[in-house]
């Protein structure tokens, strides 16, 4: 889920930027530093939106920079285990599909797509279920659940997020629609029986 957060931090303002507007410089430094980075407790920083309060500056021996205590507002994405999300398939491989969740990509392994056996159709870049012939292709919207989370603070790109679609209510938009239609038909049949009695 995305959160709008109030955070506090110490910001280093380099001396060559001291003449400029302080709020602007601090926002720049924060954006440069934090955006795209990952903190295990806070989440993935998407954007620093506002600098709210700038406290007193401090000069540390040995450094010409000024350190300010700053309160700021940030938008973060904090994923939780078991969280249900919607994403877009960006790539398919023989071992699964990569799903873009927006700021970060996640992995949907073949074993987590369906209870059926899955074949990989390399030419069309699709993963096909053997029995029902349902498939996943690039660009399709999917609804998935987060099942493994391994965030790497040092190398955000090495973070691994595992997804599953092997539960009712999860799947590509098309599967969900098909399931919904089937469900409705069943209901109609049941309703008809009752009416006939």
């Amino acid at each position: 889920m995305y959160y709008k957060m109030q955070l506090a931090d110490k910001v280093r303002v380099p001396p060559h930027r001291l003449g400029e507007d302080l709020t602007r410089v601090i926002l720049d430094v924060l954006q440069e530093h934090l955006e795209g980075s990952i903190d295990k407790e806070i989440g993935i920083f998407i954007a620093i939106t506002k600098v709210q309060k700038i406290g007193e500056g401090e000069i540390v021996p040995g450094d010409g920079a000024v350190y300010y205590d700053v309160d700021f507002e940030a938008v973060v994405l904090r994923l939780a285990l078991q969280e249900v999300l919607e994403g877009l398939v960006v790539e398919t491989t023989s071992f699964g599909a990569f799903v873009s969740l927006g700021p970060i990509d996640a992995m949907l392994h073949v074993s987590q797509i369906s209870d059926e056996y899955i074949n990989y159709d390399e030419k069309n870049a699709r993963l096909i279920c053997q029995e029902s012939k349902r498939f996943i292709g690039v660009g399709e919207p999917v609804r998935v659940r987060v099942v493994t989370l391994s965030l790497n603070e040092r190398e955000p790109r090495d973070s691994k997020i595992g997804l599953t679609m092997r539960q009712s209510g999860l799947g590509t938009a098309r599967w969900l629609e098909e399931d919904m239609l089937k469900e409705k038909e069943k209901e109609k049949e049941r309703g008809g029986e009752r009416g006939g009695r």
Partner: protein
Amino acid sequence: MKETYTRYERARIIGARALQISMGAPLLIRTSKIDPLEIALEEFQQNVIPITVKRK
């Protein structure tokens, strides 16, 4: 109220300011001097350095 600093505080302020200047901070006075330390000294004499001392 004009603050009076001890010689240690003066040294710290001028030293910090000189380092800032040497690292590219904008000057607060017009001067023909080149050495950051001399510029910092001049700024201190003119009382324009925006640095105060926090006494515990």
